[in-house]
């Protein structure tokens, strides 16, 4: 847990506006205080909970029962007693408007594994666990997700939602679209240049647009050099996140992990003589984007999604 707190402190900037409402699990499973304690034990076993908020008949929070409380009840042969006799009453709660930084402080201060979220009438509306914190850290940070096609069912590519925004890109009409319909490597960058001009015309700042353009250029060049097919560049802007997707139907990447290594390249000599093929493309994309994901498999094309949002001391608007 110390590590998570530490991580949150270091990256507070990116999370300064994330509220409890965004990270909590909701609706939440609760249990009535008059129930026998073994019912709570069964619910935990079946649903893999480590703690359950306890409520009264008005659905108001009165306590929490954790695995630790169950162990105590077991030791004292109290499993048939009402939960109200075995639960912990000193519950630390959250409200939906609290910020992630405050949540991290509460985890640090109290050492509890979970915090119920309550409304003004003390009704439980959600729960925040350490797992929720980690999930939001991973999805918001610049974490690289590398997937091969076998994992598509798990990342829901068919009905794909952009992870940071939750936007279903299948249903969105891209604000920018460019067909990579040429195979001549010396032409590479036409799409990225067009995207750059488009974004500048939409009022994005030069600094922000530069890194979007560089990442897009690298992805576009990869399509031209490596895919052996045509491709498409789409860009979307929603909820403060710019998403650029570059997709081809070509040869695919046999070993994505290997391809990510700086300096590794499968480009032929004539390409290298032109100053390409240094094995820096994907590394450049990773550096310039705030998050990227690659999905590929041999023979199945490549999909690269890049997400951009503001960095520290960077305005995304001009």
């Amino acid at each position, binding site marked *: 847990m110390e590590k998570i707190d530490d991580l949150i402190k270091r990256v507070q900037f990116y999370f300064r506006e994330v509220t409890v409402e965004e990270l909590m699990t909701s609706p939440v499973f609760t249990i009535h205080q008059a129930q026998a304690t073994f019912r709570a034990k069964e619910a935990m076993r079946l649903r893999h909970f480590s703690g359950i908020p306890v409520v009264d008949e008005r659905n108001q929070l009165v306590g929490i029962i954790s695995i630790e409380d169950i162990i105590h009840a077991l030791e004292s042969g109290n499993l048939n007693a009402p939960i109200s006799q075995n639960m912990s009453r000193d519950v630390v709660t959250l409200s939906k408007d609290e910020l992630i930084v405050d949540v991290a402080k509460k985890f640090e201060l109290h050492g509890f594994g979970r915090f119920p979220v309550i409304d003004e009438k003390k009704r439980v509306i959600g729960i925040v666990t350490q797992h929720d914190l980690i999930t939001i850290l991973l999805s918001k940070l610049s974490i690289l997700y590398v997937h091969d096609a076998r994992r598509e069912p798990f990342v829901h590519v068919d009905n794909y939602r952009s992870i940071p925004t939750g936007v279903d890109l299948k249903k969105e009409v891209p604000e920018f679209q460019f067909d990579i319909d040429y195979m001549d490597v010396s032409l*590479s960058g036409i799409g990225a*240049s067009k995207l750059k001009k488009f974004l500048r015309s939409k009022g994005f700042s030069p600094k922000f647009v530069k890194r979007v353009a*560089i990442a897009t250029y690298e992805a576009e060049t990869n399509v031209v050099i490596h895919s052996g097919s045509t491709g498409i560049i789409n860009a979307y802007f929603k909820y403060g996140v710019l998403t650029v997707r570059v997709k081809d139907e070509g040869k695919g990447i046999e070993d994505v992990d290997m391809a990510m290594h700086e300096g590794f390249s499968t480009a032929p000599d004539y390409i290298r003589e032109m100053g390409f093929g240094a094995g820096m493309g994907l590394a450049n994309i990773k550096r310039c984007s705030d998050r990227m994901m690659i999905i590929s498999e041999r023979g199945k094309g490549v999909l690269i999604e890049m997400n951009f949002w503001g960095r520290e001391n960077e305005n995304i608007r001009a």
Partner: protein
Amino acid sequence: MRTSELENLGFKRITKGDGELKHGYTCDLLSEVMANAESDTVWFTVQSHINVVAVAAITGINAIVLCNGHEFDEETIEKAKDEKISLFTTSLNAFEASGKLYDKGLR
């Protein structure tokens, strides 16, 4: 300084254009250039194909100096006009050419 000052330093101008120069960068690997060159840069290279213009436009490079007596492809020149990138050539190698701008205070 302005790109026009490159002419005074003996570099041969190939395309028109004016722009601010605050930095210099010398390299022939395109990804390296994009990853490391600042905006408002003069770029020294031996790459002459059309793609250097795209790299310059994306990176914010205002002038390209082609070293070692190489010549730009015709399509590179046309594209540079479109993108308003100043092209120059020199018979100096990249080290010597860069040194002239280093002397003038560019970093």
